[in-house]
């Protein structure tokens, strides 16, 4: 009979030039088990899973699939065995449609032609099951990050896989979709499929998984039953020291908060099909949270404020000056941590240093145009240190860093400018528990210095924890606004799904 473990990973070692990504890692994955894989950014989680998926080959160690040796040389080998993966970095083909992406590499055929209709239907069915409303014929490049993530999930579950690896599948989607996803995962578990689930979100791990394996710096720290370990213990295992995991802002409002000093003023901002009549103000020393469901138009609104998109009508004023264009926005002291780090945030073939300093090069120039390398090195080293970016050196290529560390580069880039207004779109995407606290602390320091922050987040605890005030958007409209003490998670949701608006009408 089949062995109890669908997958046995034994003593895997993997080095990249300059880093030992995995050192002697052993994990057993049982049938019908949801197995969490946790650890700090750069611990080696994604690397291990990529080895499973045939993307990397291990330097040492062996793997058994269903008791038999398993040596995947290419992704196909793993796919053929029934191992599919939701990748941390969204690897979709932008010019192709949802259906084409879902079936990429595993197209259904009808004679010698592809069975387009059949595949579209199957895609539609899966989307219905997940409760997302997309057309299988939509091109990926027209989807929001969240929608893309959903497509990646659909791709992984579209085939009757035995093992599904999910590398931070919920980093960009909102609670509603998360709930749907969990339903599906449970269903898969019911069919005796096995899931490896990587996440930095404690609540997800506790509500979903049966078993947890912890990695730290490429080393296996241990595997435990989820019910046998408390969150504090788990965090201790991950970071190797005590950590006050949840950062609590000292005071509800920072001392510099000044209700009368408007930093950013947005008036009647409209872009057809995206958002309408957006009005709000950001005050000095304030953290303004923005909540909404997937596709509510938050990202577009912020991109428009920052000058990446042109508004159909309406104005954006920063400290009294109208702004248009990204350069003007940056000059006026606005910074923008984008949601999609790979597309908008990073030059993956540039070094960590080059990425950090690109937005504020003028700070590391001498004579206005000449690079001051010494200063540049010092500045980037300081930021690498401050954000604890795990990289071999400042000259490492950004593309070789782990997902969370890439996100930290994007943050570092904007922290460097010490901006007056920092817009952060899903800033803690893929960031580990410890680093999150660091980032919250940095945000807190900023507002204490009298700066302001707009924070978009789909993680309600984070939003409720950090914001002084929260605006809720629904289908392109602002449907609610309240200071955070007035809001519960439920009320937030009610605004977000547009119920309150209906009530008003």
């Amino acid at each position, binding site marked *: 009979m089949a062995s109890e473990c669908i997958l046995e990973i034994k003593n895997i070692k993997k080095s990249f030039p300059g880093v030992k990504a995995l050192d002697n890692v052993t994990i057993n994955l049982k049938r019908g088990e949801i197995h969490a894989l946790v650890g700090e950014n750069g611990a080696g989680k994604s690397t291990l899973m990529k080895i499973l998926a045939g*993307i990397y080959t291990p330097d040492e160690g062996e793997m058994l699939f269903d008791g038999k040796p398993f040596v995947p040389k290419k*992704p196909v080998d793993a796919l053929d065995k029934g191992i599919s*993966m939701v990748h941390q970095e969204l*690897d979709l083909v932008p010019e192709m449609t949802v259906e*084409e992406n879902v079936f990429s*590499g595993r197209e259904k055929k009808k004679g010698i032609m592809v069975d387009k209709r059949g595949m579209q239907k199957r895609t539609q069915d899966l989307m219905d099951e997940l409760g997302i409303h997309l057309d299988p014929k939509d091109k990926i490049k*027209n989807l929001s990050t969240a929608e893309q993530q959903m497509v990646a999930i659909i791709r992984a579950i579209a085939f009757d896989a035995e093992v599904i690896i999910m590398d931070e599948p919920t980093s960009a989607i909102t609670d509603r979709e998360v709930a749907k996803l969990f339903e599906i995962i449970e269903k898969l578990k019911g069919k005796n499929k096995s899931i490896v689930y990587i996440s930095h979100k404690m609540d997800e791990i506790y509500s979903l998984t049966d078993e947890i394996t912890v990695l730290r710096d490429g080393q296996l720290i241990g595997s435990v039953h989820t019910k046998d370990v408390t969150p504090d213990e788990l965090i201790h295992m991950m970071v190797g020291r005590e950590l006050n995991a949840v950062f609590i802002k000292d005071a509800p409002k920072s001392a510099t908060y000044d209700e009368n000093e408007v930093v950013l003023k947005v008036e009647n901002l409209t872009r057809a099909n995206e958002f309408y009549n957006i009005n709000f103000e950001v005050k000095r020393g304030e953290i303004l949270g923005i909540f909404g469901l997937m596709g509510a138009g938050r990202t577009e609104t912020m991109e428009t404020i920052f000058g990446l998109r042109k508004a159909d009508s309406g104005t954006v004023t920063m400290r009294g000056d109208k702004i248009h264009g990204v350069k003007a926005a940056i000059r006026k002291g606005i910074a923008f941590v984008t949601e999609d780090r790979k597309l908008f945030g990073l030059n993956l073939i540039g070094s960590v240093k080059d990425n950090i300093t690109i937005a504020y090069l003028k700070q590391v120039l001498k004579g206005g145009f000449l690079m001051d390398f010494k200063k540049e090195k010092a500045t980037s080293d300081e930021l690498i240190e401050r954000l604890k970016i795990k990289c071999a050196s400042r000259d490492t290529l950004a593309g070789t860093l782990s997902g969370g560390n890439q996100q930290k580069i994007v943050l570092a880039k904007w922290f460097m400018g010490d901006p007056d207004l920092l817009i952060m779109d899903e800033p803690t995407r893929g960031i580990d528990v410890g680093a999150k606290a660091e980032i919250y602390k940095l945000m807190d320091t900023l507002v204490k210095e009298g700066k302001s922050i707009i924070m978009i987040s789909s993680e309600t605890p984070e939003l409720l924890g950090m914001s002084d005030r929260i605006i809720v958007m629904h289908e392109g409209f602002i449907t609610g606004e309240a200071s955070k003490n007035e809001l519960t998670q439920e009320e937030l949701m009610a605004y977000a799904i547009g119920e309150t608006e209906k009530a008003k009408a």
Partner: protein
Amino acid sequence: MNKQRSNADVANKKVNVGAILGKYGVYIALLVLFVALSFASESFLTVTNLFNILKQNAVYGILAVGMTFVIVTGGIDLSVGAIVAMAACFAAALAQKGTTTPVVIAMLVGIVAGLGCGAFSGFFIAYAKIPAFIATLATCTIARGIVYVFTDGRPITGVSDAYKYIGRASWGVVPVAVVIYAIFLILGTFLLKYTKYGRHVFAIGGNKKAATVSGVNVEITEFMVYVICGFCAAFAGLLLSSRIQTGQPAGGEGYELDAITAAVIGGASLSGGKGSVFGSLIGILVVGILTNGLDLLNVSSYYQQIIKGVIILLAVLADRKKD
């Protein structure tokens, strides 16, 4: 950024015009060109002349079909001109008057040479990961060198009458060359749009890493694209040499640029992931009709160049509201 949603219920009309221009720009440009030339020159709008244009451009057209595959993967093939010459010379050398080698065999040898060149480039690109620009440039020089050695730099003439068929015969008003080009267009479209292989071509052009991860055999797909392109180039070479009844060792020079231009005017993107075989036909027609029309209007070749440059720019400009 400013990506437009295809299925947008567009609110204001201005955008709509832009969208239409963006989507059909090249077609509109082609139409304008066509109508303008019909008025400017009496000789332009005649059946003979239109078939004439197609016949004259069949060689470039077939090259552009193959090139489209390459470009969709994000590659480029600079060796097609040399392959044209190689296939032409090899086949012409075998299809001499009075020899017993059947013409079909001679042509097959030419085709095999093209497949070989394509496989050579494809190997270095797909497996040795050498940039396509360099690999195909190398194939180009090597192939051209071989052709010169083979022919001693002299054209190969004296081909048998049967050899002339594909390039010069007509079925009624329809030249055989045009029929062959049509077949290439149909097969190319079918392969690229309706088969699994075609999807893989788009997938690796759109995002090679994503394609690898989803189990597409990137290497074979990429390799095959150059083989296909080599095949098309060889066939184009046969057509050319049949048309001029000669194997020219220096023939086909610079054809790669024409083929690439046609594909790009037709909407293919050199960064990969976009393009269509039918689009390459449009590209061929824009350039072909323009050349023909300017010749008919007796425009000096110096001014022709200037005009062509401007028109190609305008055609693509009309088409590129998007990126």
